[in-house]
């Protein structure tokens, strides 16, 4: 089975985020990028699937600082083909990215495309369903676990409240991964270094980006905290007393 995993980087939320002087975007000078965690799960799921049923895994992403490291780490986990899209992605949106990826995937003709169900900076839709539509393939998101047969996959789709729907999807298909069957594996640094000397990253130039279908942001801001909690200070004893008071007020004690 040929599995393609398009992934993207998102701002690292561990770092403090700031808005650029224009007020409509994040300040990229302070921005640090990290793999979208759902995409990380998609890579893991693809490799688990490959380990189970055989085949090859292709990981593709737009160029970004640290992209090569991620691609090599994927190879160390078991990915077979690494692709980096090159071009000017500075003003890109998900529609444009999905179109660029669709062009690539039309060529690669994978049986299955796995991608993260969402990313925390998705503003104009999510990559998975956009890609599915551009490729004319079915899409199911919020997938946590799947089994593959020759021409179809059986997926476990999560709904709110813990309900799971088992669905059969005809291949080829695009799936939005919520969680891999096991947390993304750790790859030792020595292994990545080893892979770096053997694995190759293919470059694919993206001539122009088609941004249509995207949206325009007129203002970006950090939410003002209007209803901040009343803070209770003092020793643990004093805080405990205050908490008990609240319990009593609400008649729960």
């Amino acid at each position: 089975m040929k599995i393609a995993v398009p992934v993207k980087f998102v701002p690292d939320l561990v770092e403090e985020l700031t808005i650029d002087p224009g007020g409509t975007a994040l300040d990229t000078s302070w921005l640090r990028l990290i793999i979208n965690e759902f995409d990380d799960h998609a890579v893991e799921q693809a490799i688990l699937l490959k380990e189970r049923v055989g085949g090859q895994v292709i990981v593709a992403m737009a160029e970004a600082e640290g992209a090569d490291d991620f691609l090599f780490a994927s190879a160390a986990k078991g990915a077979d083909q690494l692709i980096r899209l090159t071009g000017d992605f500075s003003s890109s949106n998900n529609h444009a990215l999905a179109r660029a990826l669709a062009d690539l995937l039309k060529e690669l003709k994978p049986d299955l495309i796995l991608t993260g169900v969402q990313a925390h900076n998705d503003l104009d839709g999510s990559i998975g369903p956009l890609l599915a539509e551009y490729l004319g393939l079915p899409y199911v998101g919020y997938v946590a676990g799947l089994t593959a047969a020759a021409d179809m996959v059986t997926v476990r789709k999560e709904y709110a409240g813990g309900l799971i729907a088992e669905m059969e999807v005809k291949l080829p298909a695009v799936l939005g991964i919520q969680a891999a069957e096991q947390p993304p594996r750790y790859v030792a640094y020595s292994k990545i270094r080893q892979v770096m000397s053997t694995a190759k990253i293919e470059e694919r130039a993206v001539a122009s980006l088609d941004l249509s279908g995207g949206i325009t942001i007129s203002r970006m801001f950090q939410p003002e905290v209007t209803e901040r909690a009343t803070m209770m200070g003092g020793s643990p004893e004093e805080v405990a007393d205050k908490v008990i008071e609240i319990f009593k007020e609400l008649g729960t004690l």
Partner: protein
Amino acid sequence: MPIRETFWNIPHWAEVAQYITALITVIVFLYGVGHRILRWRKGRPEKRPGNFWTRVWLVVLQVFGQRRTLDETFPGLMHFSIFWGMFVLAIGTAFATVDWDVTHLFFNFQILTGWFYIIFELTLDVLGLLVVVGLGMAVYRRYFTRPARLQNFPVKALEWDDMYVLIMLSFITLSGYLTEGLRIAVTQPDWAAWSPVGNAIATAFLSMGDPTNQTLHLTIWSLHILTAFGVLASIPFTKLFHMIAVPANIYFSSTEPAGKLSAAKVEDGSGVKEWKQFTWKQLLDFEACTRCGRCQDVCPAYASAQVLSPRNMMVKLDEHLWEKTGGHTLHGDIVSAAELWACTTCRACVQVCPAFIDHVTTFVDLRRHLVDLGSMDKMLQDTLANLGRYGNSFGQSERTRAKWTQGVQPAVKDARRESVEYLWFVGDYASYNATLTDITRKTADVFQKTGLNFGILFDGERNAGNDVRRVGEEGLFEMLADRNSQALAKCKFETIVTTDPHTYNTLKNEYAWNGNRPNILHYAELLDQLITSGQIKFSNKLGYKVTYHDPCYLGRYNGVYDAPRRVIKATGCELVEMPRHGDRAFCCGAGGGRIWMDEKDIKERPSESRIREAVTLNGVQTFVVACPKDLTMYRDAVKTTGNEKDMLVRDLIELVYEAL
């Protein structure tokens, strides 16, 4: 004149048979030893160079002096008695044989005559008694008092091996005495009284008279000879091989600093997957183990959950080599991941091992393979990912590393911008742990009040990597060490000071420094120096009754025991030692990356055991630590053991701060 007729009552054929047996024994013995040596050579190469006389002296001290064995009184004296008794008897017997069959036979000259012979007889007679006493102690201990550390071996057959040694040695000694007694009973020499034990036995046999006694003598002598040779031949195939393996292991023990872990030996940096990837020295380690169990007794992992026993690890690894793997895989069948992750790398096992086995290096090499497979605790996995990405185990932005300095007046110097005398390597816990900020600031305050010209690396600092390395993530360690080395190379300073013993250890012993290592101090050492030089003068005498916990990486790994104690005393506190202190201090359970792992199936955390140990001390209400991790571990343990009201965990710097 007293003289020895060595082969009295032994017919010529028996004497010849003896030499034939001896020859067979030598062949079997050499075959066995050769087999062992060939197997060691299947391991990876490892250099243990130089220091010839240091090594020889160590062997003399530890083998003939039984130095470490004697650390424990009963087992020590037991082994000492058997060792010296058997050693002298064996030498004496060999000497007598040479005296008779070489010097007497060829040169018609005997050394064993006259007074010299009398002393010889007396010595051997008494030392034989020493062996009997030693063996008696051993039998009593192994089969009557039955200490836990001699029970439950992972390989049941080894109990027969233990029994074999005791039975054979007992038989050799007793049959030797009987042979002597019977000889005296028949020959009744004038000097019989000089062999008190033999003479006493002779008295018992006198009534039987000849020729019964002569026949009996020949029979027992034959059995004695056969057993003796049998035991000699069996040395390479039984526990007795420790007579060769242990001195060899001591001779080849590392002369590097204890805190310097050997790098991953497999070319690609990964660890040991199958036994041949161990070095020959590690294979020798496994064979040198006599399963005395001292390591198990001091192991915090064993005490807290019984998952890992260093003794069992050695036994299992040795067995694995002997059975030629038997289709078993090293990881999984022989050692489990749970065992390997349980080790805190506290080094207590290494410190007590009379055979000088380095368990920790082996565990780390095995862990390296687990890391290579990515097979580890989720929490540890996240921590390593954080360390790789942010350079700290907390997964926080590296930009906030020096957030604790906000509001510190005067502002803490940036060692990357201006030259300082002391570069303070703050470390992850002191930098990021919200509950330790107060202590970190107090440390800064003390440094400032002392007029120390110091600075920090701010966001240029990374986790030093000590425990990353011990987790087995060698590649990440190298990356962290590189980053820190680069940052430090751009700074001008004379001395590095840190409050974290783990950081201290790796900076001091493992960073390359390109042959230009700066002075590296733990803050306990720095404070000690400042107090001695008079730069720190105390205005208060605190008068607390305190106890002190030796951090593993400060004490056992780097031998710093006195400096923190002097500092404590200088603040006017009375120091009461816990039963386990100094190089016997019990680990808090956090080391070797354990602090980053989920605690599973713990019966009693090592830190809790430690606090319970401390509260038994009369009048001690302060538990002093000199390590940020210890502070968090013990503050927690005081709560979980319900000793919050009885014991206050304090950092060394708090005492200094208060006494200033």
